[in-house]
């Protein structure tokens, strides 16, 4: 688990006002992103450990994780395929892409394959509207996706 805790508390004098500037909490998201990248999710044990390190409550860590789409408390598949549901994608035929993925993977959007290798999800606009329909495969942005490409994409993931 990557730890980048900066436990500095700085007290500043500002005229008559004194306020405490605590930067430990600012480390929370980078830590969570690190754990998510490494383990694919943030477990109960990790959440409580992180909370203890940063001096915050576990429920606050849980709250932050559930707020962001890319952080999860449940273990998902080894690979994430996210299909953009941006309107430009819909215009360009993203519905066909969704159906093809569902057919090939034999799961519905939001589910994970039985061998736990791939999770299929929808996501908001990923900034690839000029190359719609576009998807995200883990960190990669892939544009101009056609049903023919899907088999190849999945094969690469299953072997990796």
């Amino acid at each position, binding site marked *: 688990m990557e730890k980048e805790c900066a436990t500095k508390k700085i007290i500043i004098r500002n005229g008559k006002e004194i306020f405490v500037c605590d930067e430990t909490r600012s480390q929370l998201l980078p830590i969570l992103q690190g754990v998510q990248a490494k383990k694919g999710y943030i477990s109960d044990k990790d959440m409580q450990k992180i909370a203890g390190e940063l001096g915050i409550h576990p429920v606050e860590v849980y709250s932050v994780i559930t*707020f*962001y789409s*890319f952080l999860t408390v449940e273990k998902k598949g080894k690979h994430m395929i996210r299909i953009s549901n941006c*309107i430009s994608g819909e215009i360009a035929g993203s519905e066909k892409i969704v159906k093809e993925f569902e057919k090939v993977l034999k799961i519905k959007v939001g589910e994970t394959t039985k061998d736990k290798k791939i999770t299929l999800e929808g996501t908001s606009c990923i*900034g690839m*509207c*000029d*190359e719609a329909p576009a998807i995200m495969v883990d960190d990669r942005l892939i544009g101009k996706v056609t049903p023919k490409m899907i088999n190849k994409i999945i094969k690469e993931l299953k072997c990796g």
Partner: protein
Amino acid sequence: MRIERYGPVVFSEIEPYAGLKQALRLGKKGILNTVKESNLRGRGGAGFPTGLKWSFAAETDLERKYVVCNADEGEPGTFKDRVLLTEYTCLVFEGMIIGALAIGAEKGFLYLRGEYRSFLSLFEKELKRMRKDGVLGKNIMGKKGFNFDIDIKLGSGAYVCGEETALIESMEGQRGEPRNRPPFPVNTGYNGWPTIVNNVETFITVVHIIKKGADWFKKIGTKKSAGSKVLSISGDCKKPGVYEVAFGVSIKDILKIAGAANTKAVQVGGASGICVPASEFNRKLAYEDLSTGGSVIVFNEKRKMLDVAENFLKFFGEESCGQCTPCREGIPVLLEGIKLLKKGECTKNYLKDLFSLAETMQLASKCGLGQSSSKALVSIVNNFTKEYTLSKSKRKEKKFDG
């Protein structure tokens, strides 16, 4: 080539670090005056005068200040920052350095949306190179005491974090829920320190303005909207991509440039913008007329506009932070309303109620997301009356389950 049309400002010629060199000559006051003179307004969509923002931050008498680049472009139909960041990385950072010089900041952040994580190594490489060149780090370009460096913070899939206070909250490790304003980030920002948050394009534009002068900038565009806008055009057009146009260009001209035909409607400003029908294609792109952060989505006559409205509202429903009542509770009501409209079961009276709700959301929501979430629906329902029929029934649909 993803950049389809090179424009007068952002894509104009400039030598590396020319802006920064000029900025060092101008000094803090000079930079602030130049940016103010240029009438530059934020290019992220909100359009707040940049010079004013930077002046507020510069005036605040606190030891620490921050410069933040908002690279959380999540507005549907916007991809210009993706292109600007990857093709003009150095210029973006240079703009941030100039901002730091202007307000007196020593630390800057690039808040990069999680979806662009694959570009992280590219940006880190660029930062390394700039540190080697002596434009980042201590005593930048030999100016003693001018220290500034940039860190990259990643987002994690939340459109609302594009709102500046939500962005700051996210950087602080909180839920990305916008804050009460006032106080504004320029007074109380990241961890309580004065912070300026600007869009990628704004920073690039600042570099050009500093090098070429406020007068040069004001000559481009209109009287009230100086300069140019980088657009990301997509949808039903032959040449989707990134275009830079001077302010004052009409929708008609934009459609021509992008190779669009049989256009029924253009969504200007993404899901939080308005839907312009064909009858208004003479309207101009400018802060005083049609304002946008860059997103232009083209719809031809095959598209059903109510489906478009539904897509936008579903997007807002997913991305709303859920803090304030009008946005969190209002969006599902509007979504239900669209479903009724599509089925032909919406009465005239209920439509009136929905419009009243839309007004409330625009006036009473806590942040820009809530305030603009109902705009698309209102403009589509108003401008495309032929695509739906109202129910003549007197009874209102009142049942709702979960």
